[in-house]
């Protein structure tokens, strides 16, 4: 009931987004029902019906993706402190979001059923002189359980995915900092973060703090700096009497190189002769209290608190570039290569497209980050600084849907090139599916932009209080869009042209 009440009282823009979800769900449901109708009409040709059903996964995935994006931007489902006390906590809000999504999708499914039945001529007479009778199994009895199952796929899948995507997680759990002795008795999390492939990852050796394996030199240098800072900050230690959370949970794991200093901060006190970082780092004396414990227990009066309220509200922007870029480019190249050698073998072309699309989606956040970096390079003024840095910070949120749009656009371009001569290759259902996928992905991208704007509302308000002209903020947004278009437009065209190349040979 609460979900219904919250759903009813929303602004028109929110309702429009929900209606778009309903429309997407209706389109997908109609496609599913059409496949069903085809199978009913041709009970002997199961081989032909199964791929049709399989192709429906593409619009289905696009619909679910869009539903998640809309649920994320839903203002009714945003956690609020006051509501949490009433009982609308994060978990309940997740349920509300899932229910709202299920509602929109069910509405769409019902619409699809109505249209399907109407086209079949079950409700009124046969429209369009029975032109659509072929795939609708007109005149045959429609099995109710199968229809309901097919129609229930979209709402069930969408609401489940939304619930999973929005499930309440602690912002960054007070990470138990496992302090253990490193190779040479040096402590700190020197071995913790070396995951598979982390060594050879692009740029992993270039970041100043990424040196788990960079060895003692970097740590010594850091250590010495930090000691100087420690000595300066001693009086603050005394005044506050609290554990320092200078390296709070927000930036845990992003700059592992600073970890040794942070570990020393909240755990054992630095030794009195702390001037030499090498001695302190390499040989922990017995008087140092360097037991390998987590900072949460007896060594420490209280666990590291999450820093102030601002850090809770604003997720700390990521420093590091998204790491998917090299993988994405590799997959993209592999996919294009597979396609060019496929020679019209159906499965190989499909595999190539899958690889290409995955590569594009993986590479897009990195490319977006690159875009932002280029925008704010070489002595930027306020405009380029704001435009570029925001793009860098929002690279993942904007980049992923952008990559999806890119993949869809290049696929569409390549398909139209391939079938340029044979227009009848596009049936009405194919057109519907293509429209659905394109619309959903574009709408997802726009919704991600809305989400970004919502997240930055506080900052924007503060900038306006500073006297930043609103026109400048709009120009910065336009600049971001233009930069993205300038990078991704040619990229899409290039991928599409390369993909269509072998067929044109």
């Amino acid at each position: 009931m609460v979900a219904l009440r919250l759903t009813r009282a929303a602004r028109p823009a929110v309702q429009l987004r929900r209606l778009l979800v309903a429309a997407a769900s209706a389109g997908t449901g109609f496609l599913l029902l059409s496949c069903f109708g085809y199978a009913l009409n041709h009970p002997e040709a199961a081989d032909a019906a199964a791929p049709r059903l399989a192709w429906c996964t593409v619009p289905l995935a696009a619909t679910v993706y869009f539903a998640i994006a809309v649920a994320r931007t839903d203002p009714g489902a945003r956690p609020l402190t006051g509501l949490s006390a009433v009982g609308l906590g994060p978990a309940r809000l997740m349920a509300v979001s899932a229910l709202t999504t299920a509602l929109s999708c069910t509405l769409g499914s019902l619409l699809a059923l109505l249209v399907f039945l109407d086209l079949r001529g079950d409700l009124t007479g046969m429209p369009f002189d029975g032109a659509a009778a072929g795939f609708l199994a007109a005149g045959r009895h429609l099995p109710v359980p199968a229809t309901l199952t097919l129609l229930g796929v979209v709402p069930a899948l969408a609401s489940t995915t939304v619930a999973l995507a929005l499930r309440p997680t602690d912002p960054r759990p007070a990470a138990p900092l496992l302090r253990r002795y490193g190779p040479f008795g040096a402590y700190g999390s020197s071995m913790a973060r070396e995951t598979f492939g982390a060594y050879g990852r692009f740029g992993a050796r270039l970041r100043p703090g990424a040196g788990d394996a960079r060895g003692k030199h970097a740590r010594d240098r850091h250590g010495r700096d930090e000691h100087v800072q420690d000595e300066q900050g001693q009086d603050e230690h005394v005044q506050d009497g609290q554990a320092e959370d200078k390296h709070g949970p927000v930036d845990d794991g992003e700059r592992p190189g600073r970890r040794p200093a942070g570990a020393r901060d909240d755990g054992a006190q630095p030794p009195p002769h702390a001037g030499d970082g090498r001695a302190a780092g390499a040989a922990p004396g017995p008087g140092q209290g360097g037991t390998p414990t987590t900072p949460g227990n007896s060594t420490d009066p209280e666990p590291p608190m999450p820093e102030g309220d601002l850090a809770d509200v604003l997720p700390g922007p990521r420093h590091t570039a998204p790491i998917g870029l090299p993988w994405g480019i590799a997959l993209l190249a592999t996919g294009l290569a597979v396609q060019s050698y496929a020679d019209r073998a159906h499965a190989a072309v499909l595999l190539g497209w899958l690889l290409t699309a995955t590569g594009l989606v993986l590479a897009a956040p990195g490319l977006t980050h690159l875009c932002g970096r280029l925008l704010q390079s070489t002595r930027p003024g306020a405009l380029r600084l704001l435009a570029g840095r925001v793009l860098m910070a929002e690279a993942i949120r904007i980049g992923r849907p952008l990559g999806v749009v890119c993949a869809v656009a290049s696929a569409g371009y390549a398909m139209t090139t391939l079938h340029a001569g044979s227009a009848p290759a596009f049936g009405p259902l194919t057109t519907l599916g293509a429209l659905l996928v394109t619309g959903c992905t574009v709408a997802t991208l726009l919704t991600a932009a809305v989400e970004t704007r919502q997240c930055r509302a506080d900052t924007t308000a503060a900038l306006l209080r500073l006297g930043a002209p609103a026109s400048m903020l709009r120009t910065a947004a336009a600049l971001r869009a233009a930069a993205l278009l300038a990078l991704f437009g040619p990229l899409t065209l290039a991928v599409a042209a390369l993909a269509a190349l072998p067929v044109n040979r």
Partner: protein
Amino acid sequence: MEAEAPPDNDVLWARSLHFRHPDGSPGLAGVSLGVREGEILAVTGPRGSGKTTLLRCLSGLVPVRSGEVWFNSAPLHTLGPMRRERLRRDRFGWIDPAPVLVPELNAWENAALPLMLRGAGRRRAKVAALEWLERLDVGDRARNRPHELQQAERQRVAIARALAPAPTVLFADEPTAPLHRADRNHVLRTLTTAARSHGITVVLATHDADNAALADRTVALLDGRRVSTVHLPDAPETEGRAAWSLSV
């Protein structure tokens, strides 16, 4: 209370300001005050007494319903939103209760932002920003992003951001609200010292009598009106409550 200074002495002058919030709740009911050049004026009062609203009216963030606001003999109450925005950018500084910094920019870029918005060159803006950060004891954190700083450091960066473009009037709305007392005094002292040494007029909203003691003059507000002394009824006696709890 002292007599009103003649308007030509005042950098900011308001007469019988009335303001009502968009939802109809009362904001200000006839506040008049003058702010002299280079002074630090504390606007005190309990929460909800209209301090922030008064500051927002004086700085031109919101239009007043009736009454006049004059800045250097320019009528603020007749200017349109665009002109007010330009005036805010060029002449006024603003410090929020909580430091809202642009999370993507590092400390010195945040502090340099207003200067860059005014069209100053990047190099000049950087020099000024670094100088102010140094003066406010956060010079060593100039290259850190806001989320790497502590709240007090963030607030200092916000103060540096407000001071760096050398505004004529600085509006500080409870600038020390989210800080502990040690940080609070330090931050406020640096703010007032910096303002005095640079001749910046400060309008400081605070509900803390200690903070108000740092100001040259104090204007007390209560329920949107200017009062000479605030006499709130004392907290109700707790004897009865104690007796009840004993009797349980």
